[in-house]
């Protein structure tokens, strides 16, 4: 049974009138890879800084392994941090950078050399001990930063958007490596990112944050397929939002008189206002009218290689986004009338 | 924290002399004592009525006024040229314009003295003004250059596209936008010129000497608190000027950027 390694209880951090983190409760479980995901200003980096001890909460407590560390300075928390800018000491060699934490812990020189070697091997950067950070590429610097944070076997690894500075291909490469290393070492990890693809691909659990609060905490599949709030539905993946009123336990009338059957294991309250979201990749082009098939007119087409992103207008003006896998089953053009099938089990009921 | 204590002690060291000077200036008797034995304005009165100080103050006004009036336009034009003209060896030109900062005061002072003697200008204030322009120019150029660098050329092009002639553009667009740099330049120029001592010592005589030189000559000969009073006036004026400058300019940005 996984137990919490890091706990935040009711943590609030204020900067004057601004509340960067608002009464946050979070428990990070042993060995898990937890991502804090959200847009700029949502409080994810502040949360990380609270765990690391770089800022103090204005209210609340922080516990590591059940011990209250609120107020304890960063150098006494036994954590490993990888910064967005890597913060590799420019005046020290790669070896000295990685050895830094070991030296602070008075590890004997012989052991230092051995452990630095192991750490560099773990991140696949052997042989560069004598070089300076300025001589390394971005990807290599990132690995050194990782080695430096891991070499002294900290309790928790904290990563602040470490892949943000890399180009797309390198980012994907490093993403896989990062996950592999984390699994190999088994270290509890908190990962801050604004990139949802990254979070979905790397994490055991994701905490989606906004306005200093956690909107939803869960495994990636749950976050994606059953977003709890409109914000999460909007932020993760693309969605079409449809507003309507429940006509029965499973029928929703959207404006325009069209009735959609919703089969997601929930009984709707009759007469209640309902917000439905559906992912573009679940909407299908239909050939004949039928259950949950709506008529629409193509408004815009964006060719994207593997798929075409289609925006179609319903009778009442609401727009539906559809991903059509190329090659498309029928030729598509702006202004064309099409039929769209919205499968009953593909809906996400918001709220 | 130990750092805070150290900083406070050092700040005390830095400000102690100022405090002592101001305190001594109010001493009723001619003895320099601290803390003062009473309170009296007499030394301030002495300062304001002493003929040599009055003459020196007038000289300071004339010399600094003349130097600033000349240095501001000359320096502004130079700053514009440095930033925008196609120059080979721009760094060298910049170094040349800033070079008077680097020359020791005694060397410049003696040099100007010799030059003035050769030109027969020893008794005139012209040498003083010219020397001050040269000494103040680097400050003006540097201050205005910062502003010029931050000036978006697109604004002047926009004015041109709207039909303004180069002259109009300069006075209606460029100069107003350079205001922060010009203000800083004016500030530096005045303060540097008013306080300039070493060079002025060499090239002035009793008739033409400016305030700092007059003060120096007084201190060497007399030991009453008159100079403390005059110094206090200087200090008060300086604090006022700096406080104003910080309010309008955010000195942190001016000084902590290289």
């Amino acid at each position, binding site marked *: 049974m996984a137990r919490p390694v890091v706990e935040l209880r009711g943590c609030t951090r204020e900067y004057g009138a601004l509340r960067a983190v608002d009464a946050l409760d979070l428990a990070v479980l042993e060995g898990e890879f937890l991502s804090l995901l959200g847009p700029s200003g949502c409080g994810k980096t502040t949360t990380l800084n609270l765990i690391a001890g770089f800022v103090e909460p204005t209210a609340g407590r922080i516990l590591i392994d059940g011990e209250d560390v609120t107020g304890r300075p960063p150098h006494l928390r036994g954590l490993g941090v990888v910064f967005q800018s890597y913060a590799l000491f420019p005046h020290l060699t790669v070896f000295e950078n990685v050895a830094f934490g070991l030296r602070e812990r008075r590890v004997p020189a012989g052991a230092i050399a051995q452990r630095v070697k192991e750490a560099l091997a773990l991140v696949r950067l052997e042989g560069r001990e004598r070089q300076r950070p300025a001589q390394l590429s971005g990807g290599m610097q990132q690995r050194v930063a990782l080695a430096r944070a891991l070499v002294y076997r900290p309790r928790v690894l904290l990563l602040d958007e470490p892949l943000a500075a890399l180009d797309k291909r390198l980012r994907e490469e490093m993403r896989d490596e990062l996950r592999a290393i984390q699994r190999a070492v088994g270290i509890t990890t908190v990962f801050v990112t604004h990139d949802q693809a990254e979070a979905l691909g790397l994490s055991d659990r994701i905490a989606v944050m906004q306005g200093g609060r956690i909107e939803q905490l869960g495994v990636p599949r749950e976050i994606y397929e059953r977003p709890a709030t409109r914000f999460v539905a909007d932020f993760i993946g693309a969605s079409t939002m449809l507003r309507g009123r429940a006509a029965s336990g499973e029928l929703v009338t959207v404006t325009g008189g069209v009735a959609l059957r919703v089969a997601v294991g929930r009984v709707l309250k009759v007469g209640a206002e309902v917000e439905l979201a559906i992912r573009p990749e679940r909407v299908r082009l239909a050939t004949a009218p039928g259950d949950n098939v709506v008529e629409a007119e193509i408004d815009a087409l964006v060719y994207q290689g593997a798929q075409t992103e289609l925006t179609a207008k319903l009778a009442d003006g609401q727009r539906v986004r559809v991903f059509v896998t190329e090659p498309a089953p029928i030729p598509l053009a702006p202004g064309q009338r099409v039929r769209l099938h919205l499968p009953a089990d593909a809906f996400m009921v918001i709220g | 924290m130990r750092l805070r204590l150290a900083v406070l002690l050092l700040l005390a060291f830095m400000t102690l002399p100022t405090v002592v000077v101001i305190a001594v200036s109010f001493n009723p008797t001619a003895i320099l004592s601290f803390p003062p034995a009473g309170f009296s304005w007499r030394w301030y009165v002495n300062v304001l009525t002493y003929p040599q100080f009055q003459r020196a103050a007038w000289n300071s006004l004339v010399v600094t006024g003349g130097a600033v009036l000349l240095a501001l336009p000359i320096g502004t034009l130079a700053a514009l040229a440095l930033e925008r003209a196609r120059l080979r060896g721009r760094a060298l030109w910049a170094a040349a314009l800033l070079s008077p900062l680097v020359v020791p005061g005694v*060397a410049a002072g003696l040099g100007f003295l010799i030059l003035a003697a050769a030109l027969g200008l020893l008794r005139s204030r012209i040498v003083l003004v010219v020397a001050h322009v040269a000494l103040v120019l680097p400050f003006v150029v540097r201050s205005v250059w910062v502003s010029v660098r931050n000036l978006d050329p697109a604004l002047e092009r926009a004015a041109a596209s709207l039909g303004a002639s180069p002259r109009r553009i300069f006075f209606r667009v460029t100069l107003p936008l350079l205001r922060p740099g010009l203000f800083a330049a004016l500030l530096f120029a005045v303060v540097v010129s008013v306080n300039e001592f070493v060079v002025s010592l060499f090239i002035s005589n009793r008739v033409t000497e400016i305030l700092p030189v007059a003060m120096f000559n007084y201190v060497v000969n007399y030991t009453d608190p008159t100079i403390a009073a005059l110094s206090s006036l200087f200090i008060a004026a300086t604090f006022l000027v700096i406080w104003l400058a910080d309010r309008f300019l955010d000195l942190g940005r001016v000084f902590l950027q290289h």
Partner: protein
Amino acid sequence: MKLLLLPAIAVLAVFAAALTALFRWSLLEFIPGSLVPGGYTLDNFRAVLAPQYLHAVRDTVILAALTTVLTLLASYPVAYALARTPSRAVRSTLLVLTLAPFFTGAIVRTYAWVLVLGNTVMTWPIPMLFTERGVLVGLVHFSMPTMILILAAALSHIDPAYERAAASLGARPARVFWRVTLPLSMPGIVSGGLIVFAWTLSAFPTPELLGGGKVKMIANVVKDLGLDSFNWPGSAAFAMLALALTLALLAAAGRFTGSRPA
């Protein structure tokens, strides 16, 4: 556009003419009792090396070196506070207190020390006024604003992420300073040190008023020879010496700030 430089060039030309005159006269023969010089000679520079003047040069170098070291030690904490304080009010206060002496003028500042060191505030156990100790105090006080600004600029360019990284790796604040902050501020220390050293070599009002005739630095010799003895050639030679030393040191400082690690 380039023509806009002309007025400034004219001013510089006058300045250059003054320095040329200085250079020329350092090579002319001094005729005692007259302001008219003789022919070209190197005697003035030989006189610089004469014992009574050589020790002024030596004293100047020693005082400048001591001043630089003490100024560095005294300025670093203030510069650190100035660069790192999050509060704008504190930063403004520190900046005003640092800059004020800068703008108050040499005579005022030096006179203030004449008062403090001259038994006005307290009777010193050992004499301070008119001694090298006193001049040293005055020189350090004089140089602190410059050093503080240079160090503060260097420190403010150090990314705080480095200090946080060091802390996260287990270094307590004193260790963070020794292992990270201090080394990264070294270029500022060197260039600040060289600049203060160069300026102190040519210091005049401080030794003149606080030295009371007993402490002579190079600048005082220049004034004595030039304005008191009317030995313009001899004075010019010393002035050229001061100029040469200053230029050499500032050239060294320039090379250092040019090659700063990013």
